[in-house]
């Protein structure tokens, strides 16, 4: 609570206590009025002052002015009729309670969310010549400097580990609590928390350009991109207040005129004025207006805690309406790293086939060579490998232990006259021949991510109607992956510009849903920007991906896509609940007030009550851990 809030709380308490005391004091007439003016002025003096300034500035719909008119009107009615001033003071009191609560709740949420996002430390350790550590301002650390990070400290800047091995907690960035081991040569990002060992890091970015700073910026700016709901509420609020005030005026005058002129009875001024004053009390749209941005703010904060960075409240809103998800294949649904998935030897055993093939690829850096060598880790043994030669577009050959071995595609086998046979497995088939004899083949595929299937099932359960896969890979591979993951539609053999065209086709054909595209950000930028919502995966450490997308998933777990959609739906549900509840209760109060079934107490109570409930409901959008 800040000073302003503490002062107000004091005024509220004093005023309330005085009201209770006055209840037991027997006073009449002017004395009674004077006594009740004490709590009234204590609680309401700033409202009255603001009302005055509102008149001076020509602002007739200033809510302070309206509250002032309502309460002074009630006092006048008290003087001329009922002698009851409690209502006027109570109305002012509850109004201030409502304002106070709004200020407190918003302040608390802001603090909560900034604590959530407290991922940047405010110092870095530099080692002096004598070996002692000195704390410096992270802004002063230059690229290439070596900083020391001790166990338990937050990583201040992006860089590479120079010395030391440790495990780090990446949950501030990814939402994943599984620790990661880092060794010299590994990249380390600001926002990580160092856990076990002391490490020295060579910095690669300045403080403001490091990952944690970028994320903080992103999340802060996200709430400035307003959603359609927020824009609607702003426009509604601007119409609502004048509308209710005009209705109040009509309510104060028309029935009077009707009674005077048509029915010819003496008009009950007090009754209709009182009802009109009730209208004024309900004329403030505060509850509505505060709960909507608060809901989105909380939703954005909760999402970023899960490693899902959403760049605007509008995207958070749109995610909920997503009906079609288009995926890039390599790197998104598959690991993007080739692996040996099957070995089919003909004459020697599988292990030996791999052994020989790996040797032939000893000096090659081709992705296929890498995967073969990965499958046979002991490639650097005593076998003799010589005369290694690459045959472009076809494969490699070498002399291994005196034998002439060719490793490559069917074109290579054809060119040396070796009869090969095809494989029923999907993937890239690498044939091997030894001294002119076909030795068998090895299947290399791009492996589907373990959680990809679960991710797609989860998406369907979250209400996605159609899934599409786009890939530059060949049709067979695309078909296998699609079938395995139960994707509705796929397009293969696509060049980058073809992918954009396909996205446009999808956008034109859709029945009404939002189309999201999921890719790895780096080479998918054009498609990402074309889609309604561009989602970049595995963005941790990739500036290009963070720039290009609307939603950034820090790690490469495809299950986060459906989590993002579920967070969005929860947030939007809360927003609609608040809109319907707040507008509904206000209209009910107006109707009851017009018919004399509600008094000012009820009106202000309902107003404040609605605000409290709406704000508490909005905070629920923060809790997304179990979604």
């Amino acid at each position, binding site marked *: 609570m800040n000073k302003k809030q503490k002062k107000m709380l004091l005024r509220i308490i004093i005023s309330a206590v005085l009201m209770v005391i006055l209840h037991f004091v027997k006073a009449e007439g002017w004395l009674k009025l004077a006594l009740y003016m004490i709590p009234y002025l204590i609680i309401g003096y700033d409202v009255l002052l603001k009302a005055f300034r509102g008149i001076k500035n020509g602002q007739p719909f200033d809510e302070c002015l309206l509250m002032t008119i309502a309460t002074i009107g009630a006092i006048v009615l008290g003087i001329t009729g009922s002698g009851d001033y409690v209502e006027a003071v109570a109305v002012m009191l509850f109004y201030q309670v409502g304002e106070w609560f709004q200020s407190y709740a918003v302040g608390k949420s802001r603090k909560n969310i900034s604590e959530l996002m407290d991922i940047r430390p405010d110092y870095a350790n530099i080692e002096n010549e004598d070996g002692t550590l000195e704390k410096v301002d992270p802004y002063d650390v230059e690229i290439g400097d070596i900083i020391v990070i001790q166990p338990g400290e937050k990583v201040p800047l992006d860089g590479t580990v120079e010395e030391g091995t440790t495990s780090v907690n990446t949950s501030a960035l990814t939402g994943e609590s599984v620790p990661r081991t880092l060794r010299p040569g590994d990249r380390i990002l600001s926002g990580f928390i160092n856990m076990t060992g002391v490490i020295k890091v060579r910095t690669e970015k300045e403080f403001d350009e490091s990952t944690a700073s970028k994320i903080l910026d992103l999340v802060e700016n996200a709430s400035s991109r307003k959603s359609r709901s927020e824009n609607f509420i702003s426009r509604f609020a*601007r119409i609502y207040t004048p509308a209710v005030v005009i209705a109040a005026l009509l309510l104060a005058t028309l029935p009077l005129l009707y009674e005077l002129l048509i029915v010819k009875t003496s008009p009950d001024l007090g009754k209709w004025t009182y009802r009109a004053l009730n209208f004024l009390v309900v004329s*403030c749209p505060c509850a509505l207006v*505060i709960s909507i941005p608060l809901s989105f703010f909380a939703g954005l904060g909760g999402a970023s805690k899960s490693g899902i960075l959403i760049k605007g409240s509008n995207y958070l809103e749109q995610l909920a309406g997503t009906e079609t998800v288009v995926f890039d294949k390599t790197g998104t649904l598959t690991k993007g790293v080739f692996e040996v998935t099957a070995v089919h030897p003909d004459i020697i055993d599988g292990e030996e086939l791999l052994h020989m093939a790996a040797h032939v690829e000893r000096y090659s850096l081709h992705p296929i060579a890498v995967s073969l060598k990965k499958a046979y880790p002991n490639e650097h043994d005593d076998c003799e490998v010589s005369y290694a030669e690459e045959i472009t577009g076809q494969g490699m050959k070498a002399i291994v232990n005196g034998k002439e071995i060719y490793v490559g595609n069917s074109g290579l086998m054809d060119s040396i006259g070796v009869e090969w046979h095809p494989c029923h497995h999907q993937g890239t088939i690498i044939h091997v021949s030894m001294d002119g004899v076909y030795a068998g083949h090895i299947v290399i595929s791009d492996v589907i991510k373990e959680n990809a299937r679960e991710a797609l099932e989860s998406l369907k359960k979250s209400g996605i109607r159609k899934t599409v896969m786009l890939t530059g890979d060949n049709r067979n591979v695309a078909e296998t992956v699609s079938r395995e993951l139960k994707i509705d539609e796929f397009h293969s053999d696509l060049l980058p510009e073809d992918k954009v065209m396909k996205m446009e086709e999808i956008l034109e054909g859709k029945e009404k849903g939002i189309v999201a595209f999921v890719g790895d950000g780096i080479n998918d930028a054009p498609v990402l920007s074309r889609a309604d919502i561009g989602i970049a995966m595995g963005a941790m450490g990739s500036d290009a991906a963070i720039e290009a997308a609307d939603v950034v998933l820090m790690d490469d777990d495809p299950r986060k896509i459906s989590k993002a959609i579920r967070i969005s739906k929860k947030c939007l549900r809360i927003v609609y609940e608040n809109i319907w509840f707040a507008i509904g209760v206000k209209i009910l109060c107006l109707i009851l007030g017009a018919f004399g079934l509600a008094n000012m107490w009820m009106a202000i109570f309902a107003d404040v009550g609605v605000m409290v409930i709406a704000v508490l409901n909005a905070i629920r959008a923060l809790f997304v851990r179990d979604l």
Partner: protein
Amino acid sequence: MKRSYNIDVDCANCANKMEVAAKKTEGVKDAVVNFMTLKMKVEFEDGADVEAVMKNVLANCKKVESDCEIFF
């Protein structure tokens, strides 16, 4: 040219009023008020005198909401 300013305002409705007032100010191409982060982003017309325009923005905002502040 775009700039971001810290602001102080008490209620969300008032923040909206500030946004409308800022947008109407001469020299302002567009303005967005973010109540949750208490920031106002202003996009100025080409050639506008930033200091002078912001003084007018503050004056216009004070007319609709006497309790607000813009820090520039």
